[in-house]
């Protein structure tokens, strides 16, 4: 990799014009600040989940409920979507609009697929009578997962908006800077998911 100067962590538009970089530097830094705020939010939800995991109030436990296969597929789908977004970022860097749209489209499909898988899992659990009202444990499970899922949904809507904007404005400065931030957001969600499968699903099957 070249030793180019990076103005901010995350996806870079290294060959863009300097004022681009400045604009991006300011907004990206702001966006990182927001992401860190969000990270704390998730951290507290994780802490809550960890303190609630044994509070099953006589209801089912994670070990009895979770389908590890489904979690594995969800993980792969999200990971692939991170990768496809990355390929989109590469296309953006080269200024190639068409591949960019294509990769964004792939990411969108994968994102929606993830949400679908999650909803299917929820439906299955609810079918077994394991609802968010059953126990403190399940409340914290559903809320943790849904907050992450909602973030993915927001990401999907954002992708749709960006697809429309690329079509409307082309790869304008604004548009590129927004895709950049969307990318940070999307990768961030994958990071959160790593913690989810590690603290929610794996301990349940491992114990």
């Amino acid at each position, binding site marked *: 990799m070249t030793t180019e100067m990076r103005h901010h962590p995350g996806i870079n538009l290294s060959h863009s014009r300097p004022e681009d970089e400045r604009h991006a530097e300011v907004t990206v830094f702001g966006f990182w600040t927001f992401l860190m705020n969000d990270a704390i939010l998730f951290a507290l939800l994780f802490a809550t989940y960890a303190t609630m995991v*044994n*509070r*099953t*109030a*006589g209801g089912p436990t994670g070990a009895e409920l979770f389908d590890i296969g489904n979690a594995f597929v969800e993980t792969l789908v999200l990971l692939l979507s991170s990768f496809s977004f990355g390929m989109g970022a590469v296309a953006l860097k080269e200024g190639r609009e068409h591949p960019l749209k294509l990769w964004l489209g792939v990411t969108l499909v994968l994102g929606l697929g993830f949400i679908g898988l999650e909803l299917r899992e929820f439906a299955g659990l609810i079918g077994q009578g394991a609802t968010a*009202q059953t126990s*403190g444990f399940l409340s914290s499970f559903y809320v943790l997962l849904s907050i992450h899922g909602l973030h993915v949904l927001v990401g999907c809507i954002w992708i749709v908006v960006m697809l429309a904007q690329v079509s409307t404005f082309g790869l304008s400065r604004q548009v590129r800077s927004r895709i950049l931030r969307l990318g940070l957001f999307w990768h961030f969600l994958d990071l959160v998911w790593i913690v989810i499968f590690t603290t929610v699903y794996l301990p349940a099957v491992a114990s």
Partner: protein
Amino acid sequence: MFKDTMLDPAGPVSAATRDLFFDSVGLMLIVVMPVIVLTALVVWRYRAGNVAARYTPHWGGSRIVELGLWFMPVLIVVMLWFVVWNRTHALDPYKPLASGQPPLVVQAVALDWQWLFIYPDENIASVNRLVFPVGRPVTIELTSDSVMNSLMIPALGGQIYAMAGMQTELNLMADRIGVYDGRNTMFNGDGFSAQVFTAEAVDVAAFQSFVAEARNAGEALDSASFETLATPTIAGPVRLYSSVENNLFHTIMASHGSMPHVAADASSTMHAEHNP
């Protein structure tokens, strides 16, 4: 003015708390008093009208002074650390008090808005009135049948929360006969202000006659009469119960199966919260 408070302790815990108070405040005053005095002096001396005072508008720092500034507060705080570590362990409310006698066990249940005290060994119970022998440690086990409460008897020492489905513990002792105020300090609704009880430190004979009085009270405390007692009551009367249903305290706890270990027998549906 401070009769029967921490400053006029009626037991070893509050006496130790008072000593701790004076020790730590003494330490702190070493660094806090100078601030007040110096501020007054500096403000007076360097008022603009006093042209005789030295004026150094560009003096913005000095290595030595700046390092020196940290020294005193650090010293005091480090001394306080040792105090905190030792006394927090010594005065842990769960810690049984040193005494030749075995502690009297009392199980306190916080209700809306009164206190129920169960004496498991004597198999009696009282409401809004806690009676115990002077000079003998009291181990109070607490739970709540409602929201979070906090039991405090200022003359004897500190407080601890009472929470539904859980059990906390408070060890106190009186070394002076007297009637002390006790109350819930954790806001819990309309009857909060009136949720007081009397804590009576009495001699052994008087304690025996209190037990006898309760035994003759007539009413027994079982699930049904507990249910009546637990309905919200503001400024309820003192009551006595001649006997207590076996393990009632734990039944009450289990009825709010919050904790993992009691959740298993949460099958008891005793006035569970209604979920609209």
